[in-house]
């Protein structure tokens, strides 16, 4: 595993256009080992597109994304799968596989080169972390949306990669599981892995992220620690909504509240 703080993925001058419209413009960003990077911004700001570009799913029209110094487009699917995992927003499964089978699918990139024990251990750890033990025997297609999201998270964790992308992992989850997922992300970062997470809840991002990238209409409006990025002026301007920022505890983690009557 790379030293904490070293850049694993580097995006330089990344622009993406779709139908002549700029989705992303001139993004410079590093994904670093041992930290959680949160991508936030209003709907349509380009968060998911940026995640696709950083994870190698989409290639930018301009600029370059490198993974460990090599252009990310040069990697084969299997090489990439051993370096980064991705939790997508849509996680429908076409056939009624059992939950345990779905989680085991996360081990596919390691089919050759890992032992049965490695696989079993990775699956057990992932199942515990995502809190899906009680679902293992069920059919994936019979689960609720939130349960499906957690099983998909377990699959991503079982992949055991140094870089983990999570696209709105908390969207379908209840309050407790939202916190637990972010704690799992925290744990991954503590192991020296890099976590990139798209979240809508600014307070959640403020509480758990090491750095926040605030996107506005495809541009990087701000990049820094939660305390630096989350100012009332900036959040109000980007989201077009008056907010008040409370600072919690000694660390001054920001909590964002809309101004209400």
């Amino acid at each position: 595993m790379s030293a904490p703080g070293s850049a694993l993925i580097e995006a330089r001058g990344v622009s993406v256009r779709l139908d002549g419209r700029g989705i992303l413009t001139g993004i410079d960003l590093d994904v670093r080992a041992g930290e959680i990077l949160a991508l936030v911004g209003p709907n349509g700001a380009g968060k998911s597109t940026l995640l696709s570009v950083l994870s190698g799913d989409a290639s930018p029209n301009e600029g370059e994304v490198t993974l460990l110094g090599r252009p990310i487009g040069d990697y084969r699917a299997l090489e990439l799968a051993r370096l980064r995992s991705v939790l997508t927003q849509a996680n429908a499964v076409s056939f009624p596989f059992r939950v345990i089978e779905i989680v085991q699918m996360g081990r596919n990139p390691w089919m050759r080169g890992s032992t049965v024990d490695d696989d079993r251990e990775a699956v057990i750890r992932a199942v515990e972390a995502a809190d899906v033990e009680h679902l293992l025997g069920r059919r994936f297609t019979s689960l609720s949306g939130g349960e499906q999201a957690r099983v998909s998270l377990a699959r991503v964790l079982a992949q055991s990669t140094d870089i983990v992308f999570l696209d709105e992992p908390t969207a379908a989850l209840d309050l407790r599981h939202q916190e637990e997922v972010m704690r799992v992300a925290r744990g991954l970062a503590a192991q020296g892995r890099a976590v990139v997470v798209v979240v809508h809840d600014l307070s959640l991002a403020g509480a758990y992220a090491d750095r926040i990238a605030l996107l506005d209409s495809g541009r990087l409006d701000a990049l820094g620690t939660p305390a630096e990025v989350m100012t009332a002026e900036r959040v109000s301007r980007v989201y077009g909504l008056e907010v008040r920022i409370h600072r919690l505890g000694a660390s001054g983690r920001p909590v964002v509240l809309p101004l209400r009557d």
Partner: protein
Amino acid sequence: MSPRIRAVGLTLLLAGVVVGGIVLSAITGQLAITPTEVAGSLLRAVGLDTVWAPTDPIVESTLWFVRFPRILMGLLVGAALAVAGAVMQAIFGNPLAEPGVVGVSSGAALGAATAIVLGASVLGGAGIAVFAFLGALLATLLVYVVSRAGGRTEVVTLLLTGIAINAFAQAGIAFVLFVADTASREQIVFWQLGSIAGSLWSQVAIVAAVGVAGVIAAILLAQRLDLLALGERNARHLGVNVERLRLVSIVLVALLTGVAVAFTGIIAFVGLVVPHIIRMIIGPAHRGLIIASAVGGGALLVLADLLTRTMVAGAELPIGMLTSLIGGPFFFYLLWRQRRRSGGWA
């Protein structure tokens, strides 16, 4: 019971059905033959002379020129169609995809009919098989390109595409019939009904070579087909080269369907019914599903063939008619259930 034990158990059970079906099929017919005569004849073929061996040369020739090739053809075609269905459902992400329903069989039939008219049959069975494969390949590619969006296929789009391709292929066959001379015309009409009667060893050999290779290839792809159930993007994230897997699978479906259709005509719904029932019993994991489907498809066609030979005394029903008679209502039931579950034709 673990899914693996269930899969092995079901496969063994089906294999038992296959053996029973083979024996039953070998002894039943206008000329009654005893099971011991069948065993004796088989043993003699491998060089063991026993008291069971039939003394009557008519029995011997009936077994070796009529019944055995026919039984083997049924086994192979059933296995090929069932596996083609399972692979097709995996790459379409839809349990209703089936070579007969979406027009792949019709495409193969058009190819085979064209081969017959062009006289490619003088090249022997291989000419027809190659044309059938090309027809099936074109049809599969067409359905695939037209009916998928975002890695999945909606039922409506799939079926509408199937209607269009079936209509086109049927028109093509009609045209081929129109321009054909009387002999070719008769050959095409008879073959179109779907029948494994009159199978020749040379044909069985071709179907065996392609069918066995295709089933083995499908088993090798099984794990990757599992991952495809997560959607294409997720499969790619897990290291699957999705583009290559798609291409290989499409060629595989076309090969299996083409070779099955080439000599026996369109036998529809085998690829729908067999994988579906097996999925209900052992779950959707593709390794077990494909192996059990191959055995189950073989069992189904051997038994269906036996039925077509015995249901009406002195006459043979076309086997394609029989499978559609069972498969049609079954397909309707699946449609109805899916519609109820998803609240629409999605």
